[in-house]
Each structure stands twice: as structure tokens, then as C-alpha cells.
């Protein structure tokens, strides 16, 4: 299978003053395949946000190439095709909502590319349905909760029918309810076949993905399934990261009760382990 996004020896630097450049990404190579659900984690300034902005050509590399479906992101003629294939959802929902009525906001991108009226209506309906915001379609967005606004922003991206959506810290301004709503939508879209890439500081959110990429000092230092990655508690802590709360709790319990598994990354696994442990079913 061909990757949907391929980075080939990508480097990127920012000029920080007259004389000095700081290199943010150093010779990164990476392939993302259709249908993957990838979380990118790393501490502040590690380069993960820059990396996400290279994925649909918002930024282009100083050295190396980024290919989206075989289109080079440096090719300005292909910009529209690239943005069409890879959509983005940002941190602040307020910065992405432009219209005064929810359904108009979702239709905004479609109007821009001249989608016929009937088709537009159909796509808006579908997108609002996926993010479970249909009942709010005639409401003004500014009275919605953060999670609801972010779901409207996602519907706007979804209506463009991209193959991949990049979420750049899209849950960091949301409370636990809002975050759960958005994570549910991500999972559902991934189940529908869409490629999901999420940049996050929430380890319990990263645990939902099928693959985690850890970025440190402009390089990819770990790449694996959440279960593999979260086994490296000490390494992650050295990278200013951590393992999910339930993994930390399991670790503490495991130190007292060796039979209590520490290989736990999800809340439901933790609860299951407690129940099994108490029923005496462990190992017997």
C-alpha cells in the first residue's frame, strides 16, 4: 500500500535572530498509511507542531520533501489537491469558526470550492451527523461549549471529504467531557476509514491511537503501538512526557502486588484488572 503522506529526509529551521537559526526538525523520514490512527507526542518545543504543519503544506521543508498522495507539498499547483486530501483542526475552535450559524459554518469551505447546492446540503448533513451536532445546526456557534464548537470545526473539515485529518492539539482547550466527545469522533472517523493524526499532550488520548510517534529535539525517537511506547516509562519521563494515569496507578499497585498487571494503558483495562484480581481469577 502506498503511504498517504511520506516525509523524506525533512529538515526545517526557524531564524531566531539575525545570526542564528534554530533547527526544529532534523532529517525526518516518516510514512503514514491510509486508515492509520497516529498520535504524535513530544514536549513543548520538540518540533511536533512544526511537523504537523508540514503534513499538508502549511509549512514546506528547507531540505527534503513531503509527498501527499505523490504530490510534492512544494508544488504550488498542487496546493489545492493537497489541502483537499489532508484537512487540519487547530487548538482554538474560535479561530476556525467563521459563520454565525452552525450549518453555514460547516458549508463555508464547500461554498468556496463551488460545490453544487444539493451536494453541499448532503455533505453538511452527513458531517453534522458524524460529529453528532445535527440538533444544533440552526444555532449560533458562540453559545456552544468548547467541545461542541470543536465538533463543528471538525464537521467543516469533514465536509470537504479529506482522506486524512490532522488534529493539532485540538483537545487541549477542552474539559474532560469535551475531550471525550472529540476523541469519540476521531475514533468513529477512523472506523469509517479516514486517516487520523493527532498531536497531543494527553497521554490517555494518545493511548487511543494505533500508533504513537515520539518527537524529541526535531527527531523521531520512538515509533510504535501505544502498548509498546508506554512500556518505556522512564524514557518517556526523561523526554518530559509520562504514561497515562491508569498505567501509573497500575505500576504503583504492581509494586505491592506483583500479580497485578502493569501492562495497562486504558481505563477499562484497569477496571477489568481490578475485578479479575479481586475475583481471584488472575493466573488461575
Amino acid at each position: 500500500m502506498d503511504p498517504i503522506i511520506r516525509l523524506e529526509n525533512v529538515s526545517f529551521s526557524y531564524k531566531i535572530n539575525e545570526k542564528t537559526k534554530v533547527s526544529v526538525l532534523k532529517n525526518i523520514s516518516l510514512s503514514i498509511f491510509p486508515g492509520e490512527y497516529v498520535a504524535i507526542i513530544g514536549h513543548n518545543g520538540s518540533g511536533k507542531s512544526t511537523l504537523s504543519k508540514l503534513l499538508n503544506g502549511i509549512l514546506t521543508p528547507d531540505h527534503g520533501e513531503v509527498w501527499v498522495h505523490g504530490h510534492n507539498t512544494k508544488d504550488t499547483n498542487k496546493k489545492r489537491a493537497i489541502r483537499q486530501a489532508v484537512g487540519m483542526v487547530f487548538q482554538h475552535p474560535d479561530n476556525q469558526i467563521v459563520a454565525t450559524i452552525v450549518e453555514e459554518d460547516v458549508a463555508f469551505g464547500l461554498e468556496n470550492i463551488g460545490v453544487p447546492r444539493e451536494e453541499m446540503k448532503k455533505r453538511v448533513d452527513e458531517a453534522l451527523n458524524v460529529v453528532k451536532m445535527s440538533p444544533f445546526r440552526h444555532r449560533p456557534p458562540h453559545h456552544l461549549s468548547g467541545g461542541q464548537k470543536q465538533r463543528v470545526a471538525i464537521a467543516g473539515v469533514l465536509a470537504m471529504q479529506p482522506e486524512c485529518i490532522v488534529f493539532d492539539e485540538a483537545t487541549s482547550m477542552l474539559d474532560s467531557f469535551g475531550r471525550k466527545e472529540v476523541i469519540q469522533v476521531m475514533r468513529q472517523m477512523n472506523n469509517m476509514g479516514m486517516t487520523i493524526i493527532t498531536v497531543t499532550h494527553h497521554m490517555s488520548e494518545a493511548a487511543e491511537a494505533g500508533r504513537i510517534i515520539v518527537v524529541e529535539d526535531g527527531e523521531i525517537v520512538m515509533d510504535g503501538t501505544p502498548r509498546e511506547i508506554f512500556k518505556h516509562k522512564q524514557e518517556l519521563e526523561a523526554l518530559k512526557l509520562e504514561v497515562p494515569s491508569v498505567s501509573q496507578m497500575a505500576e504503583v499497585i504492581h509494586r505491592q502486588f506483583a500479580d497485578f498487571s502493569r501492562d495497562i494503558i486504558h481505563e477499562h483495562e484497569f477496571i477489568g484488572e481490578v475485578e479479575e484480581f479481586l475475583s481471584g481469577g488472575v493466573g488461575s
Partner: protein
Amino acid sequence: MTVKPIIEIENLTHTYMKGTPMEHVALKGTNLYVEAGECIAIIGHTGSGKSTLIQHLNGLIRPESGRVVIDGEDLAKKKIDLKTLRRKVGIVFQNPEDQIFEKIIGDDIAYGPFKMGLPLKEVRERVKWAMSVVGLDFEEMKDRQTFALSGGQKRKVALAGILALKPKILVLDEPTAGLDPRSRNELLDKIKRLNKEEKLTVIFVSHNMEEVAMLADRVYVMADGKDVLSGTPKEIFTDKEKLVRHQIGTPETVQVLYRLTDLGYQVRTDAFSITEAADEIMKLFAGRKEGTEHVQRI
């Protein structure tokens, strides 16, 4: 209680775009009492009025009706000394880009102390101190350009700029949103120390319940322009009926404990930290000997 509160807000209302078709009532008679040296969390959904409320604390919004008294100064008066007020009350906003305006980090943090007319040496000391509090290396970062910073670093710079003013009351809107786990924990530790050791009064708006549980002495819950509930984190997070009614989230640890109580296990739900929660769960295992009663897991 005889201590006079440092912040007294009573029955405060605010209407945006009053008298226009866009009129929107953001505060509908809200209250807030804070004693000097307290650390107060304000939580509530988007649109509940949190941000409007905190903008009253340094006079960015003047009271439409109701009472706002900050450190003895009644802000409903026609003439108030805004300069003194804003030195006393430092607000760090949610979006750091709103309050970073110099090109170089050091200059940005020094801006406030400079304007206060402090001697250069003192300004430098304050910048150094403020940068160390937020965890920015002075030598490495002071000459860097602000635009090339990551979101988390910008947040630190904005906070340092306010701390350099040495305010009496520090107001933070979502202080750790967008910070990595280590930076978040370090910053929370620093805020806690400023609060406990230097007796800085801290008021913070947050959606992160871990942070609320760890920092706050008391929590105010806002909904629809009013304070609907207040209490210690313990009081708030252990009252399931209220959590559900006001749609308040809990720390992940507490979430696990509630899940277990739902399944019929007897655990306390006021164990917020990882170790407290783990200890609470291990009490369930008390009857079992460690690893002797059952076969080793394969």
C-alpha cells in the same frame, strides 16, 4: 470569619453589546470571595462567564451593577487608580499571543518592570527571577525572538512578563493548556510555591481537573453567568449528584474510583493523586496476601 477578603464580588452583572440586537448577558449576578493568600479555581463550561468575571479583577471591565472590591478599592467608583490596580492584579490570558508584543523574550518580560520605572539592575533581577519561575533558562532564552517560540513556550513568556510585575494577586486563565506533562507539573509546583511561600493570592480558570485538585484551596463552579457551587476540591469531587447536575469532570484518578463504586466496590472518591488513588484501590486487596494465594501469572 473576621478576615477581610482581598476580593469581594457581589451580585455582579455584565451585558455585552447592550442595547444592540447582539446583546448578550454574560454575568447574571455572580459572587466571588477570596481571602488574601488563597488559591481559588474557577471552573465551568465555555460561555459560563468565567473569562468575563476575571476581566473585572483588574478593571478591564467595569461593573455594570453589583459590587467589585479589590484589596479595599471599590471598582464601581467613577475614578479608580487603574495603574495601581493593574500592578496589584496581574492577569495571564488564555492566548499568550494576546500579551506578547516585543520581538525579544527578555525585552518582553522586562517591559512591565521598565514601565514601573525600576532601576535597570532590579529589572534584570526580576526578569531572571520570573524566567526561572516559569522554567525558561535566562542565558539561553533571553535573546531569542518571541515569534519563533512554540505555543507552550509563549505561554511561559507571557506568565513571566506578569510575574515580573510582582503582583499581589495573580490571575491565570487556563495556565497549563498546551504544556507538556513535565512543564505542566513544574509550573503547577511553582504556582503552588508562590502561593504558599510568598503568600501570593492566586485565582485560576481551568478545565483541567487534575490541576484543580492539586492546586486549589477552594473551587467556584460557574454556570450560565452565575456561581452555582463552591467548596474545597474534596467537597466538590465527592458529591456525585452535584458533579452530574453541573456536568463537572473529575481527575482521571477519581473517574476510575467512581467507576469502581458503580461496580459496587467500596472506595473513597476523594483520593486525587496517583498514589492516593492506588492506595485506596489496594485497600480492596487487603484480604489477599501478596502473591501467595494465587498462582503466578503466566
